[in-house]
């Protein structure tokens, strides 16, 4: 594995391991991820991925060279039992270590996590995986995820930050995010970071060198973003994380009136020369598996490239981007992304125009804009929200959502929707059990009206079952 070219035998071994994981992992962090990374393994697996061609970007403040591909620890593989439906899955640490080794070997040096990810076990897993390397070989990025009101006090927030240091087994953090500012608007932001003096504290920690770079990750209410950028002179953000890809560039607002187009966010940050982290490069996998006819157009242009690679190339072609975080659950995801970015072949003007068209097509589809980030989970009434949406989207993409019984493929579509739903979500966790308590709504970074969507899906299921479509 230390050779520049991984031997075929070793490669098969890795691919085998990850395939085995693919077969069983389906809950917890790994749950929604079958669609997160690459849609097709046929194009990506048979490549030789160079270990010395990673594209790096320079942090203007520290001069650090950061790999354009950052490893996101939000969608880690889990050890699942065969039923793969019950909660309480453990992270598959052995596979995480293997993935980390492979990533580092191929030039990845930035690793991102949060105290909230994977039911709170992600940081710990990252600590184990990375502490096997010298501290100067990698950069850690984590967040202050004080979401629950009882965590809004200074003491509770500080405890979260200190726990991060301990879990990650480091004495300084390279990149610390104020996590998901914008959710809940200015009011929530003030309570989480301003009123309790937490932001002042973190800025002092930055001065003390225990935080190398301080920034924030943003979703939702644009007022918070504007406020923080307007006051850049006070806070001196070292980086900011936004959601950006060729669909969100011009269509984020169209997909959800609560959200802002990425073009605006990017330009404001570029104006202030703030390095940008990118999250959701694939919209939780939705840009890795497009509707069949759209996928065909992309394949025609670059038959050798995965569908996911388009989004990475498009994002990386923007100079202000410091790194793109991708939650790679399986070895194929990692390999595909590495082969896209080692080295990067930038998008041409022509390709950019073409992707605009793809985005236009994409938003025509009635997908639920869920990225399967699991922030809504656990639902207090046990509903498996992200898997429900992932299943629905899968059926949309594959053309298995019926409009009426007259549809040519109605029987097959009905079978696939109903049987497939029972397979991925056990009946007592299905959409019918949503009581509209709306606990999830404030947690969703994509501002999806989750109960409404669940009810729509439940209505659709009822029509399929009763044969009244």
């Amino acid at each position, binding site marked *: 594995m230390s050779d520049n070219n991984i031997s075929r035998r070793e490669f098969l071994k890795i691919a085998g391991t990850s395939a085995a994981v693919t077969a069983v992992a389906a809950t917890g962090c790994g749950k929604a991820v079958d669609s997160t990374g690459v849609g097709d393994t046929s194009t990506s697996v048979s490549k030789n991925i160079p270990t010395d061609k990673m594209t790096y970007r320079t942090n203007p403040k520290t001069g650090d060279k950061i790999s354009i591909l950052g490893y996101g620890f939000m969608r880690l593989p889990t050890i699942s039992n065969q039923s793969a439906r019950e*909660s*309480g899955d453990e992270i598959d640490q052995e596979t995480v270590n293997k993935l980390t080794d492979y990533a580092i070997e191929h030039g990845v040096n930035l690793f991102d996590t949060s105290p909230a990810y994977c039911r709170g076990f992600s940081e710990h897993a990252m600590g184990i995986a990375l502490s096997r390397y010298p501290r100067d070989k990698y950069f850690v990025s984590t967040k202050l995820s004080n979401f629950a009101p009882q965590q809004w006090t200074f003491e509770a927030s500080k405890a979260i930050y200190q726990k991060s240091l301990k879990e990650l087994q480091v004495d300084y953090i390279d990149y610390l995010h104020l996590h998901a500012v914008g959710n809940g608007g200015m009011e929530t932001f003030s309570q989480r970071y301003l009123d309790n003096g937490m932001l002042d504290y973190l800025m002092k920690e930055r001065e003390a060198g225990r935080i190398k770079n301080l920034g924030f990750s943003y979703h939702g209410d644009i007022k918070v973003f504007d406020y923080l950028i307007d006051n850049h002179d006070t806070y001196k953000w070292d980086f900011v994380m936004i959601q950006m890809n060729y669909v969100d560039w011009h269509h984020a607002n169209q997909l959800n009136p609560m959200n802002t187009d990425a073009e605006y966010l990017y330009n404001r940050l570029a104006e202030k020369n703030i390095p940008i982290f990118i999250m959701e490069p694939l919209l939780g996998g939705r840009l890795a598996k497009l509707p069949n006819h759209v996928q065909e157009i992309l394949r025609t242009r670059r038959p050798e490239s995965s569908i996911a690679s388009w989004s990475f190339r498009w994002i990386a072609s923007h100079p202000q981007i410091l790194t793109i975080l991708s939650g790679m659950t399986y070895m194929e995801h990692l390999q595909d992304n590495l082969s896209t970015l080692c080295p990067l072949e930038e998008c041409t003007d022509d390709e950019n125009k073409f992707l605009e068209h793809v985005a236009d097509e994409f938003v025509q589809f009635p997908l639920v804009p869920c990225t399967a*980030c*699991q922030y809504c989970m*656990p639902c207090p*009434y046990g509903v498996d929200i992200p898997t429900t949406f992932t299943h629905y989207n899968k059926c949309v993409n594959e053309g298995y959502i019926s409009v009426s019984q007259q549809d040519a493929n109605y029987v097959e579509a009905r079978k696939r929707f109903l049987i497939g739903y029972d397979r991925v979500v056990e009946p007592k966790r299905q959409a*019918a059990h949503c009581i509209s308590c709306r606990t999830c709504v404030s947690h969703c970074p994509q501002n999806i009206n989750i109960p409404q969507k669940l*009810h729509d899906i439940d209505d659709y299921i009822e029509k399929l*079952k009763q044969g009244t479509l």
Partner: protein
Amino acid sequence: MLKKIRFWLALVFWVSITLLFLDITKGLHIYLGWMAKLQFLPAILSINIGVILLVLALTFLFGRLYCSIICPLGVFQDFVSRIAGRFKKRRFSFKKENRSVRLYILGVFVLMMIFFAPIADLVAPYSAYGRMVSLLFQPIYQWIHNIGASIAEHYDSYAMYSLDVWFKAGWAIVVPIVTFIVVTVWSWKTGRGYCNTVCPVGTLLGLISTKSLFKVNIKDDKCVNCGLCEKNCKAQAIDYKLHKIDYSRCVACMNCIDVCKKSAIVFSRCKSEKAESKATSEVDESLRKTLATTALLAVSSVVKAQEKTVDGGLAVIEDKKIPNREIPVKPAGSRSYKHFSNHCTGCQLCVSQCPNGILRPSTRLDSFLQPEMSFERGYCRPECTRCSEVCPTGAIEKITREEKTAIRAGHAVWIKQNCLPVTDGVSCGNCASHCPSGAITMVPLVGNPDVKIPSIDSERCLGCGACEHLCPVRPFSAIYVEGNLVHGDF
């Protein structure tokens, strides 16, 4: 030749009826449902004159062919006895008929059918077999099927899907276990011992078969008294020394004809012997015991919305428990509790066919092993009328989907102290939004108008259990269904 025909016909019937009970495709009843309706006791209970006359005529013409071809319990015993024969050949010998015991059991059976059917049903052959297959073997069959389904899933095929496997009978599973052991051991030792001692249908048909037109006869001139026929007679009805056959126990299996080397046994017309007969057939509909009613409101532990600090995971969901229903809910089409109890033999065909996991045998004494509904695993879906289609006894009469929307099998009852809006101040209304007949309206609670609670229009409620099943409160729902003693008109 005759034996071969009998053998293959029996095999077809037996396998088909067994598959009907095991059925996981849930579509076999369309093709095989008539086989269940041919069964004698169910035909009597559903007053299916055609079938009753057919079976009686068949017996009058050819003897107890019914027992060796149509009755699945009979063929099952032949199957067991056949295996036993591998170990010990020619093991039978003539036994005298114990007629008084047989008639006594038949008499008690008829009385029990009139006054306390669930106990009588325990020995009824078809339903005893149905209980064995449905309650004991179906789960095993489904479990094997699920292995196939998981393979299908692995290959992304939608040809098979996983089934919810559970033993439906609760403690009453001892009944099919005991039946299985008794019948297996008995037939291992004495072939058709059960049929010729206990089985009321066997005794009844035996009364007719003594006078049947065609019978197995031993030709005195050809017989060399070798005794092979007697040793191979699983009904133990041949006395080779006297060249006599007890026709009340002979099930016309034709094994003796096949085994006789001298062709001394033939199936032919012969003069009937004199035999006493007793008229016993019609089973009256009559009052059965009224209900024993004891009910306690099950106070429920309520789901507490947990405060979220980390992402992902699934909240633990407690399984629902069966509430204490004063009156059990019987499936739509059964008309009334009384009608149902009078007709059902507890064969479990509807239980094994129910696609929603609702029907299961009752463990109440007054309707022992007769199916009732409960909603922990699903509810009685508006588009489904399967149980009414398969019922061979007419206990659940055939209804259409449209008729079902007008049958009030039960009514929902609200339990205030369990209801989430009352206990936790959370707005809910899942019962109201899923009620197929729109019988539930959310109304402000008196004294606290911010809290909306369900109000039930019993006139519109069908007792389908959607509200009970989808209520978020566990293990006991805040709304549950009580059965109606008499179902609304249809």
